[in-house]
């Protein structure tokens, strides 16, 4: 085995053990308390999970996209929220690596080891329509002055560094990196979402935040491109989270159906149950293959927009449906708040919306299919 393979195996051994011992046993408690109990955030930092895909020259472990997604998949099997918290951080690092100038990279990437970075586009006035936003940056001398209000940020309130999309002209979108220790930075209200309740989702308010030119991510006017790029990276990792959710669902239903008996026969022997279990397994494996193909393309420098959209669109719908099937198999236990199935449905449901709705994914897929044949 070469160094790359060996490293990957050691990493995944560790993540599996970490998930089994530190994450999975707390899944229900994380959901119910809406927080990362068991000191999970500190443990995640202590063992350098935040540096998984951070390039080595910035003190990271430098794992590729495929391995990083496998880590998220494994963690999400224990708790989907924690998978999404890491996804939000990783996609932000991805954009700074891809678009940041050297000074920005030198300043922020080494900090990514211990400070979570978030990525923010949505505002009260617009989500999927970026030109509807009102946040803006104005150039004053060699500084930029940023004002505005960003909401529904994944890890908002938890993250300490934010990549924010603002207008630099009426029809010009640009990204800046702001820091919670800057003057004029304030945290706003936290959302009270239905699922993925461990992930803080919140607001930041920017009042005359003054940043240097090197805090501009990419160039002026590159907002749409950077936003799309972040979406793609996020969608791949969401495919991994969704795979983890379906693996969790499969664990629950197979265990239950093997032990639960009707007329002295385990219900796994019954065709109606078998169909549902098989459907969940097929959907899980399909989603896994989709995200793995997307990461392969990404790692080999090829375009992965369509596969990323497929992984998220197919995976989110499938995980919700699979959760519903799992609930039905478990009957009353499935419907109980004391059992995990219902929260897996709520968790999966979030990803039919976040990082572009499933409808928007279909639009993207259809247009790519048409473009490829034009």
């Amino acid at each position: 085995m070469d160094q790359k393979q060996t490293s990957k195996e050691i990493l995944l051994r560790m993540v599996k053990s970490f998930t089994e011992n530190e994450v999975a046993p707390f899944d229900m408690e994380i959901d119910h308390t809406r927080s990362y109990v068991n000191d999970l955030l500190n443990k995640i930092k202590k063992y350098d999970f935040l540096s998984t895909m951070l390039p080595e020259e910035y003190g990271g472990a430098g794992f590729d996209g495929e391995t990083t997604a496998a880590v998220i998949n494994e963690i999400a099997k224990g708790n989907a929220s924690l998978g999404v918290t890491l996804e939000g951080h990783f996609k932000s690092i991805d954009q700074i690596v891809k678009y940041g100038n050297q000074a920005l990279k030198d300043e922020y990437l080494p900090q990514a080891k211990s400070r979570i970075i978030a990525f923010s586009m949505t505002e009260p006035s617009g989500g999927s329509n970026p030109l509807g936003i009102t946040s803006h940056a104005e150039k004053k001398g060699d500084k930029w002055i940023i004002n505005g209000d960003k909401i529904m940020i994944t890890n908002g309130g938890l993250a300490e560094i934010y990549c924010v999309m603002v207008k630099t002209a009426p029809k010009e979108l640009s990204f800046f990196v702001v820091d919670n220790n800057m003057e004029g930075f304030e945290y706003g209200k936290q959302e009270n979402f239905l699922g993925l309740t461990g992930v803080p989702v919140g607001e930041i308010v920017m009042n005359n935040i003054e940043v240097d030119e090197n805090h501009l991510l990419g160039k002026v006017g590159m907002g749409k491109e950077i936003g799309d790029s972040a979406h793609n990276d996020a969608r791949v990792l969401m495919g991994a989270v969704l795979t983890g959710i379906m693996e969790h669902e499969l664990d629950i239903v197979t265990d239950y159906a093997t032990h639960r008996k009707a007329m002295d026969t385990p219900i796994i022997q019954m065709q109606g149950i078998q169909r549902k279990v098989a459907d969940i397994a097929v959907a899980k494996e399909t989603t896994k293959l989709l995200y793995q193909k997307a990461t392969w393309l990404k790692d080999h420098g090829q375009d992965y927009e369509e596969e990323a959209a497929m992984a998220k669109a197919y995976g989110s719908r499938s995980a919700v449906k699979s959760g519903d099937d799992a609930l039905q198999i478990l009957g009353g236990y499935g419907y109980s708040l004391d059992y995990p199935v219902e929260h897996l449905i709520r968790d999966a449901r979030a990803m039919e919306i976040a990082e572009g709705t499933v409808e928007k994914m279909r639009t993207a897929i259809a247009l790519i299919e048409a473009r490829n044949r034009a």
Partner: protein
Amino acid sequence: MKIVVCIKQVPETTNVKIDEKTKNIDRRGLGGVINSYDLHALKTALEIKQAVGGEVITLTMGPDDFAVSLRETLALGADSSVLLSDRAFAGADTLATGYVLGKAIKKIADVDLVILGQQSVDADTGQVGPIMAELLQVPQVTYANEVTVKNDHLVIKRNLDNVAQEITAQLPLLLTVTDTINQPEYTNVVEIAKSFAKTITTWHASDLQLDDDRVGQAGSPTIVRSISSPEKTVKVGHKLADNPVDAAKELVTALKKQNILAEDD
């Protein structure tokens, strides 16, 4: 202090079944991991090193791909590793394994302390440590729950069935540890890459000056005649007497006979 930690790579789960066709253990799709008790042994060694200085060497016997587990110990903080790999070692039982590991300890030379987990989770024997100790003619303390270093000796706590022991031990010593002795760390994500700067040395049979008849299958007195899945223990419930007082007496007598209750309970 020069410490050698012996580790074993085992299947990631002990929940294995027998393949109906081959009558062998079905290990398809099962990855390997470091035997969980050995991680406690490694942590014990690293803590001793932190307290008094020295070096920690990890040692295993197995095929070349067990090097992954050694690399993992390096990422966890061991200083170097030795892999004992040779076709001649195949089919070894605990005696032949202990023999080869013991020879390797001698070759490493000047070892003050050898630490192992109390047993492996696949074979479940716990025999290799004492076998090595006997072959090396050093004292042993097995099933240690607590170890502290005092000057040139160790103070070790362990429990027998209903006896607690505190043992003061001089070096050299062979120690096996339980899983309550400490809480092993997880591998740090960033340390994995750094571990490649450390060395894993491979020794073959020819490097160790072995008696051929004490190695591998030839050196293994035990023979596995057959393996099987345990019969599902269907509990045949015994109905106790109808009168509660008689039932209680009947139960206590039965439980004492099985040692579930002690005589003085």
